[in-house]
């Protein structure tokens, strides 16, 4: 394999790249000019299809295919760029916007040309204050330089890009939640069908693409599909931004071909596990994914292989490392607290389930756990999400997966924790315990009045 040469991050060490002139001088906006002036939109779609570029936002859906779902006879199309990036431990999109905004704008331009969208909304989470400032500046410069606006490059194609700030809701990273939020509503995901390609933002055909996905597009246009497919593993091609954080020495964002392993990331880029400790586990791509045990650290981090480990998927390729001293219960406490806080509250299983799981895990952590709580949590987790079909979106899958996965992989540790950490103050109330065990909550010598029967039985059963 030839030595990997970074493309997405190639300009990150150049602080001048924020200016459109500098970006142009390094060959920037050549791909967009090529696409707009020498190719038809369908040719661009076909090229991206041929590259087998898969969405970098988490689900890994083929981008070209997504674009081809748009109705042929559409009059108006919207592009929504998903920069909500709210999956914990993920920050690669922020790097892309802060460190090379024009590459991203060029990606939007080509993506919009391919999908014939003349308005693009970049939905950025509000926390990215600096990134928003940089992006708005870059959009203004790109517009002044003729890369945006009316009749771009004389091609007849018009495009306006608007930044739309989020306001602190994880669910707005779900594509239909994002659309609802863009429309000025609460970010409650929509039922599908219809998919956004048919009826999306403002009831018009809409494409929702992740920032990194679009950032790949100029390079594909410039260098071709074969170049793109020369990197990565089967069905997972191209470069990918991995982030490494947690209990490692260096927390970084690094561009590598898809399919790198956790071990490589920790050792070659993360500077090893911190404090001279050993790793215990790692989250492969944001906390929704579950855990890789240290025995699974050699599994390629791509769209396909990772699923064989019982993790939900590659997710956002945000690798978080847990060292050997970290307790699984603390990790579960953290993930369940996150999802209880972020559940949008629309579907019953997720709204009630995430809160229930958090309360139970908190009780176990406080020393009030019961072994049967693990089975109960497993049952709850198995019945929430898109996978069993009980919710509209995948948030519940993400909430359930770490729990299912941890119980499958670390049950002995969890059981041991429950046995060894007993705090009477944290235990459930005796009345609750009795009810859940199917016993009467009353003292054994109490008679119960049963309507219609009278004083019928003593509560000893």
């Amino acid at each position, binding site marked *: 394999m030839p030595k990997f040469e970074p493309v997405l991050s190639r300009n990150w060490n150049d602080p001048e790249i924020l200016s459109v002139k500098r970006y142009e001088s390094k060959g920037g906006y050549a791909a967009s000019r090529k696409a707009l002036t020498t190719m038809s939109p369908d040719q661009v779609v076909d090229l991206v299809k041929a590259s087998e570029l898969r969405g970098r936002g988490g689900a890994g859906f083929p981008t070209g295919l997504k674009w081809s779902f748009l109705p042929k006879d559409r009059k108006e199309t919207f592009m929504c760029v998903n920069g909500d990036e709210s999956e914990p431990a993920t920050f690669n999109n922020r790097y892309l916007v802060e460190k090379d905004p024009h590459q991203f704008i060029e990606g939007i331009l080509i993506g919009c040309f391919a999908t014939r969208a003349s308005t693009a909304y970049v939905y950025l989470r509000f926390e990215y204050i600096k990134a928003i400032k940089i992006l708005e500046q870059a959009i203004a410069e790109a517009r002044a330089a003729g890369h945006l606006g009316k009749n771009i490059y004389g091609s007849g194609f018009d495009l306006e890009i608007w930044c739309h700030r989020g306001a602190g809701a994880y669910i707005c990273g779900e594509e239909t939640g994002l659309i609802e939020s863009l429309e000025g509503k609460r970010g409650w995901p929509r039922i599908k069908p*219809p998919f956004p390609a048919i009826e999306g933002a403002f009831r018009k055909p809409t494409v929702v693409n992740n920032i990194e996905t679009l950032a790949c597009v100029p390079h594909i246009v410039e260098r071709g599909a074969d170049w793109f497919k020369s990197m990565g593993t089967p069905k997972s091609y191209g470069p990918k931004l991995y982030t490494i954080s947690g209990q490692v020495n260096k927390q970084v964002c690094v561009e590598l071909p898809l399919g790198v392993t956790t071990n490589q990331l920790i050792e070659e880029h993360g500077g090893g596990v911190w404090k001279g400790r050993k790793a215990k586990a790692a989250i492969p791509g944001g906390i929704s994914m579950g855990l890789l045990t240290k025995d699974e650290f050699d599994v390629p981090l791509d769209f396909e292989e990772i699923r064989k480990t019982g993790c939900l998927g590659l997710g956002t390729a945000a690798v978080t490392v847990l060292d050997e001293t970290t307790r699984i219960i603390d990790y579960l406490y953290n993930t369940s607290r996150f999802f209880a806080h972020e559940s*949008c*509250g629309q579907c*019953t299983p997720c709204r009630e389930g*995430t*809160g*229930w799981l958090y309360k139970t895990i908190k009780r176990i952590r406080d020393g009030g756990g019961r072994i049967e709580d693990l089975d109960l949590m497993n049952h709850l987790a198995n*019945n929430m999400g898109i996978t069993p079909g009980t919710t509209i979106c995948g948030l519940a899958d993400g909430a359930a997966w770490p729990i299912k996965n941890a119980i499958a992989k670390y049950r002995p540790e969890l059981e041991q924790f429950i046995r060894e950490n007993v705090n009477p103050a944290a235990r459930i109330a005796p009345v609750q315990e009795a009810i859940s065990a199917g016993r009467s909550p009353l003292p054994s010598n109490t008679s119960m009045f049963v309507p219609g029967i009278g004083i019928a039985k003593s509560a000893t059963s």
Partner: protein
Amino acid sequence: MATIIIDGQSFELPEGAKFNAIQAAKHFGIDIPYYCWHPALSVVANCRMCEIEVGTKDPATGEIKMLPRLVPGCQTPARDGTVLVTESAKVLEHRKNIMELLLINHPLDCPVCDQAGECGLQDYSYEHGRAAHRFVEERNVKPKKEVSDLIVLNQDRCIMCTRCVRFTREIPGTAELHVMRRGDHGEIAIFPDQPVDNPLAGNVVDLCPVGALLDKDFLHNQRVWFLSKHDGVCTGCSTGCNISVEENAGKVWRHKPRHNPYVNDYWICDEGRYGYKAANSPTLLGGNYVLEGKDHHGVPTDRFVKRLNETLTTRILDKQSVLGILSPYLSVEEAFAAAQWLASLTNRVELALGPVPVRGEDLTFAPDKTKGRSGDTSFIVPRPFTISAEKAPNRAGVEMMLDHFGKGAVPFEKALESVASHPIVIVFGGSPDESWIEADQVAALRKAEVLVLFDTTINPLADVADFVAGIASFAEKSGTYVNRDRRLQRFEAALPPREGVWPLLDLIAIVSGDGKAPIRSQEILKAAARVVPGLAKVEDGLVPELGLNLDSKDQPIPDAGFQDDWTLANVSTV
């Protein structure tokens, strides 16, 4: 023909039907439980109660392919080849789970909850839930609040189905209700000092499948299982909304809407909802009265009828003419019987229409589908709802009788001018509003030598009439009305006539000596249909459940008759 397979059995979908799985299954007698879905509101699929297994049958090979996951029935269109499995172990287990989740923060306060007996949580717990729940953590406790002067919201009982929120946004378009916060801290709320204030507000109480939104007017008045429900038609305006009149112990306690896609869809307005109060009014006439000197004296019906007939006979032999006034509150049958009797008295009779109250302008709520959520909601058919400015139920029906027996609908004002030439004036009232007649109109009528009034309330005209007969109120009579769209609709009596009072049909039969009480209104309608051309369609006296358009043929509505489980819950009465 489109064929759908439900639980292994094939059914033919009706022509032109656009059903979802819930409607289709119900059409064939199979219940799929649901909360958040409503046939007139956008589909959100958030309660997840209606989930079933869904698949398709390949028309060529006959092979059935099932989706690997559960799918909400509410968002599943019923098409040719759709396969539904509603009773598999997987589905039943799922329902148990959902019931458990919906109840984890729900208080166990059914004994003090007004919804008990018609509650979606009670019904489905019993049918689909599990006996003991496994939730042992601390509950979230949410507050009780008022969302209007008449509606209380018990947030602790709410299941966040958002029916109420969607209703205010999509039907009246006033959007007073909203969801506050998110996750399991979400609540239904109003903006401070902006209560739910629209003419259809009360419908949110009907829509609420649980005891969260309750009507303060009804609160703690009656246990619903003591109520008997009677199919009624609202008399508040000429729309003729189909209602359920619910009574116990001689009183009407509430009105609820009954679904009729040709008239009111699933709704009623608040005026009609609280119009039930007139049925219990203390100002209802309690018998028959004759004016002697300055005072009215109550007389038994037989003596009243004898004296009335003596007076009329004498004067009519004297060739005195009669002015008959028929109020738009009379039923078709009452108007027919009254007009027929008047015509039988003498050929010197003039018929006129009583005052037709009109207030403001027609108010139409045209649902805006774009206000709802997106989705394949072709099976959602929100229909416009109109509150008519004409505040009487049967002008059209009474006019048919005036046309047939008289010289058309002589307006009330014109009739007043001709009192001078008619020594005998006989007025048939029936308005629940005692101020239906104004002082100058009373004075004009009082110029008659003999003034006879059949009416329900103690009102200014009753104060001066020579003969006053109390008749059955709107809640005490059966019959038909013809609404603004010339739809003939049947209503049933909810209460027996009050002590000392006869239904008008019986009273006319006694007065005219024509037939023997009790008179069945259906027989009168049959008789009317034989002679009144406009009624030819009901020659058998039978009126279909959703009424009958007298002029044109109804467009068939495939989803007609889908009664939402929670708008008008079926309560088993004691």
